[in-house]
């Protein structure tokens, strides 16, 4: 079922969910969900608002314990690892972060090293290198001494990304990493992700709202509707006009992206709009 974009089969996934039921107090989001994250993939999860994308990511990162079923990491139930052990293997950048009052960039980024540190090993040479590299990769080195709350939204997002990179986990889950960024910085972040995957062997799982960006960057696309996987595979196989209508309720054409050849979703032109108005999702798509 799951293959890399280069056609390599990936029988083993370091990270997979087996029949997980994810729920908050009384609200069940996903029931008996199976998902295998192909190793070395840039897996992008798409779906309408409130379909359970973030919940899925939280479940995969053991931030939310499944009511039933289990998430497996490297062949073992993720719950059987110590908290720091998981954090050395798998990183998660949640959405909508709030930085502590007055914290500086370097202070925040360096906290990504916590799972590698101990009481008497507070700052190893590896810590130093990882933080410098992470800040360099996200172009935040010049901001090192600045308080995070004085930065622009785009700078802040890159600082959080730097913190997650400093963690140096080979699996990185990103919940809407491009929110608050202008289009140039969105592409910057996605280019960085693509680079991490292609040259550094990272496995990336990201929730993205922009379908066209998802198609361009994903090696593996997962479409989610009402907490269930509707389709997954290569973007060219997954994204069709029918699927977009099914998942987002949007009439569209799908053509080949003139730059990359990946699917490009173009919403149908509706002069004067339509009764009921447009959803946020459609507005986002409509801008492309």
């Amino acid at each position, binding site marked *: 079922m799951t293959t890399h974009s280069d056609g390599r089969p990936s029988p083993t996934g370091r990270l997979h969910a087996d029949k997980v039921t994810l729920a*908050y*107090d009384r609200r069940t989001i996903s029931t008996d969900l199976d998902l295998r994250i192909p190793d070395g993939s840039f897996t992008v999860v798409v779906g309408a608002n409130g379909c359970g994308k973030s919940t899925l990511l939280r479940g995969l*990162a*053991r*931030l939310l314990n499944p009511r039933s079923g289990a998430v497996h990491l490297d062949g073992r139930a993720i719950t059987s690892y110590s*908290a720091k052990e*998981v*954090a*050395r293997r798998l*990183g*998660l*950048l*949640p959405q909508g*972060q*709030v930085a*502590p*009052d*007055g*914290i*500086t960039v*370097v*202070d925040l980024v*360096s*906290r*990504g090293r*916590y*799972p590698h*540190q101990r*009481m*008497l*090993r*507070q*700052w*190893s*040479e*590896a810590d*130093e*290198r*990882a933080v*410098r*590299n992470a800040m*360099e*990769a*996200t*172009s935040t080195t*010049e901001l*090192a*001494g600045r308080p995070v709350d004085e930065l622009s939204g*785009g700078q802040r997002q890159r600082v959080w990304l730097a913190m997650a*990179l400093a963690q*140096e986990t080979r699996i990185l889950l990103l919940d809407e990493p491009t929110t608050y960024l202008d289009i*140039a*910085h969105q592409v*910057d972040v996605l*280019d*960085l992700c693509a*680079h*991490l995957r292609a*040259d*550094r062997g990272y496995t990336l799982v990201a929730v993205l709202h922009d379908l066209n960006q998802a198609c361009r960057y994903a090696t593996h696309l997962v479409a989610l509707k009402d907490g269930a996987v509707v389709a997954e595979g290569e973007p060219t196989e997954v994204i069709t006009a029918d699927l977009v209508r099914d998942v987002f309720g949007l009439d569209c054409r799908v053509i080949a992206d003139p730059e990359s050849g990946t699917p490009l979703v173009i919403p149908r032109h509706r002069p004067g709009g339509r009764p009921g108005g447009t959803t946020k999702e459609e507005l986002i798509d409509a801008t492309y």
Partner: protein
Amino acid sequence: MTTPRSSSPPPLRSSGERLRGDPDPWLGGASVLAAGPGSARVLRRGERSVVVERRPLVVCLLLAAVAAGVVVGSLVLGEIQVGLPRVWATLTGHGTAIEDLLVLDLRLPRVLTALLVGAALGMAGAIFQNISRNPLGSPDVIGFDYGSATGALVVMLFLDGSGLQTAAGAVVGGMATAALVYVLALRNGLDGLRLVLVGIGVGFALISVNQYLIVRSNLYDAQSAAVWLVGNLAGRGWDHVRLLAPALLVLVPLALLLARPLRMAELSDQTAVALGLRTERVRLAAVVVGVLLASVAVATAGPIAFIALTAPQIARRLTRVTGPNLVASGLTGAILLGISDWCARELFAPRPVPVGVLTGVVGGLYLAWLLTREWRKGVA
């Protein structure tokens, strides 16, 4: 953003990837951490490494010096002045009877009690403000102090307990209050603001309970209990120091062990868990240590208001670093209470006021300022 987006991201390098003979540019110079406000330095010895933040270190040394100054000042200055040479002579066992009484029996134990209580309150405040991520989340605001007071009052008024038993009562009362506030405030993880609001509510209820306890007791007990409830250090002697000192000797190191996890707990719960912090466990340990610190302070001096609220905020502004700032908060609390108690003792002579009145008035103004600031932040 300073980098043009056309430039491809620089390659990431991992620790193992450096080529042999490739001198690592990072390790020769200062650590990247030096860019922070604490201008941190890394002390390394083989595998072991410790981060020392210079600014907080200097601040703590200065605060310790000020605290020592408060002790000396309290011994010297007063309605009856005892000159510095005479204080020294008295401390070394060459004082007159009146000097012995004044310096060794009255002033020294009282100022030491003030410093120890202040330190305990300051650290407790730092812990609770850290885990609630809110400057208002301190034990005197969120009701824990009043719960300790309830426990202590029950022992004092109805069980006729000793000092140690009163302390035990305070601990039980504080723990029960903390448990109650947490159960009421927890819902899908801890929300700092909800904790503060629930705590304020529970605090008000406990103030009524405390007043009821006093009304129910006989007149003599009621009066001394009422004075105690304001927060008072008058008449505190070596017995109190002997109770406080060992307690802090155990609790302070425990609190310091929690300093690093507490720094991580400042991040959102999700981020902290993603970084490998067992937030629930850290929080539980921190609450236990924090309640114990606040309880021993309350058991000794009554629920002195606002030291726990203000000390961590002052300390934070002095050190400029994030984290609970435990040592600086403790020292600041000690200094604040030491000075406040001296003022309460001497400025109002011959009718000294309980120190709680003084901290209440000064701290109340601070609280008003803090509330308007938080309010504006919430609206913005």
